[in-house]
């Protein structure tokens, strides 16, 4: 038996029925040719479907589903412990899901983790820096992992500009303030020109000036066609940055839509108020 799959995407009816059998090899064919993956060329950057993550008896993420389109800034918002970081860690290949499906540009999070790491860039909430390396050296080390030397130098120059650190870029990172460390990390994330930037609380703990600087960089990146998923418990920030948001509470997505649509639906003046209303209801 020969099987030729032209549409292997998640949205394809065939795939919905047989994808698991194909993945686990129980579909008996003599030859299987996958000619095209729908998501590669589609507008969907990330697909999360019925995602569950348990740590022992504790369920951090409980059956959430959402999709992110290319060029979109998608926000996960909610209080601490809502499951935002766990979701981002799963998308960034750091944690395996307990069940459910996650695809990044058509690549399965478990099977194609290596491929995914090549096209994403992740900023952890408490991402640290190397104490004895300068900001410029750090950017150069990361750039050389992604690019050849000529491209790497160009990327580093651009990243230095993103960071706005001026001459301080040559100082050891142990001398940087928290805001400066965050700026160098954002520069590192965007320098690699990821197809998907995953930002966990990008402005947490920063003063107004540093936070605004970082928001502007993210905004500019998205305007140039970059796809971003970020988490925050600063709902005003999310409202400013994101084209769509998902409100998370205790591992569930309680509502997801455009910020304005959510506010209209819940008759709230801002997302914070909307969140309180939806959780209370």
């Amino acid at each position, binding site marked *: 038996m020969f099987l030729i799959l032209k549409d292997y995407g998640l949205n394809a009816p065939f795939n919905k029925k047989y994808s698991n059998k194909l993945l686990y090899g129980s579909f008996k064919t003599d030859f299987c040719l996958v000619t095209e993956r729908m998501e590669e060329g589609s507008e969907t950057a990330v697909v999360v479907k019925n995602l569950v993550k348990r740590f022992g008896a504790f369920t951090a993420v409980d059956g959430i589903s959402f999709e992110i389109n290319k060029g979109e800034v998608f926000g996960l918002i909610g209080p601490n412990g809502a499951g935002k970081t766990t979701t981002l*860690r799963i998308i*960034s*290949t*750091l*944690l*395996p899901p307990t069940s459910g499906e996650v695809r990044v540009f058509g690549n399965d999070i478990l099977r194609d983790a*290596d491929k995914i*790491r*090549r096209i*994403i*860039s*992740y*900023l*952890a909430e*408490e*991402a*640290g*820096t*190397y*104490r*004895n*390396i300068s900001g410029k*050296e*750090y950017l*150069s*080390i*990361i750039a*050389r*992992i*992604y690019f050849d030397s000529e491209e790497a130098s160009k990327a580093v120059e651009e990243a230095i500009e993103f960071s706005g650190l001026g001459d301080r870029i040559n100082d*050891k990172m142990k001398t940087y303030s928290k805001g400066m460390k965050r700026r160098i*990390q954002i520069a*590192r994330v965007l320098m690699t020109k990821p197809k998907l930037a995953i930002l966990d609380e990008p402005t947490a703990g920063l003063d107004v000036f540093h936070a605004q600087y970082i928001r502007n960089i993210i905004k500019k990146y998205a305007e140039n066609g970059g796809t971003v998923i970020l988490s925050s418990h600063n709902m005003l920030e999310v409202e400013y940055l994101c084209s769509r948001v998902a409100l998370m509470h205790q591992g569930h997505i309680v509502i997801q839509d455009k910020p304005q649509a959510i506010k209209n639906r819940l008759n709230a003046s801002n997302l914070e108020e909307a969140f309180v209303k939806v959780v209370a209801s």
Partner: protein
Amino acid sequence: MRKIIPLIEKEVKDLLRDPRIYIGLIIPVIMLPLLGSIMSTAVSTSIQTSMVVLKIAVIDADKTRLSKEFLNLLKNTDMSVYEIDGTDLNSAINWMRELGLEFLIVVEKGFEEDLNNFRVANIRVYAIIYSVGLGSIGKYNAFQTQLQNYIKIFSDMLIYRLNPNVNAETIRKPLNFTFHSILKNNVVKINPQTFLSQFLMGYSIIVPMILFILSISVVQMAATATAVENEEKTLETLLTLPVSRYEILVAKLLGSSIISVIGGVLFTMGFLIYFESMLKMPGMDISTSFYQVLPPIHLESFLLLGISIMLSIFFITSLGVVIGALSSDVRMANSLLGFVIIPIMVPFFLILYGDPKVMPLAIKLVIYAFPTSYPTLIAREMIINPIPVEAIFGIPYSIVITTVILYVTSLIMSPEKLLTLQHKLRARTVGKEKRQ
């Protein structure tokens, strides 16, 4: 490989610029030669000073012609001799303390009579210990040598009295043994006892000692460098880069090993300078010509020693990386290090104080299980025997075991597994602390 190089660069720069590391590297090069030179100078100065002004008190309880001759003999040396009247020991010692005299020689009554009847004459010697420095040891050694000279002079005298035509040396030492040691297939004119003691002081202690100190610093450095990634929250970023876990660990291994080799070279330099200064100290005259008469060591042996040292460093570093990876912070890594340092020590001491060839199979297996044993084994055997075949097999074995350790660590190096393992280890450590 292209992706590993920037990671190795990161490791080397981050480690080399860390004051805790570079100060640790520099200290042996400065401190050991300084220590050696201070000790050597202190001892030499102390001995020279005390030999010039060595003051001896003498009580002559015999007061005969021969006892007077003995006293004259003492007076004709470089020492200042003070004769004490009376025979009360306590008052003599008090008097000596007032004058700062260090030695008291008491010629007992019957001295001449014993000698004339060819019996052993008794002389009591008292030394007041004013200090316990190394200089004192040299001084007392020098004084002992002087006393041996007096014995020789008196025996010459007695033999001459018996028969003026006889060579006193022949009577004293009628048999002359010339010792030879057979090393490999070479006959070397060295007393085996001298060889063994000097060999022990040289190769078989220096090499293991350097390796031992190096191993401890390497394992600590690798563990700290890896644990810091957890502590400073840089590991998460590292694990999302397009490099495999195995490459991350290999970069850590190579980065830490480069620093270790630099550290090893600096430590060896410092230690050799220190050792050389120690050899120059009076009473510690291990001649360098000792090594010149030894059979030549083939280049292949040195090469094998070098390779086994490198593999030993890689092995130790891989253990440090594992410990660091399993630790949530540097403190936890340091407490886990004890589990690694102990197994490193066991084969070191087994080889140092025993002969693996005659050990039971179980102990031999323990020794051969650790790649750290092979350099010690090679260093020990390369002079006296052909390199043992086990040591040669140890080379591929060391490579395999190090690779396996890194590979297994790369398999468990996912945040979820690490968090679980770290949690379990922390719980165990906290439980242990509570029980204590």
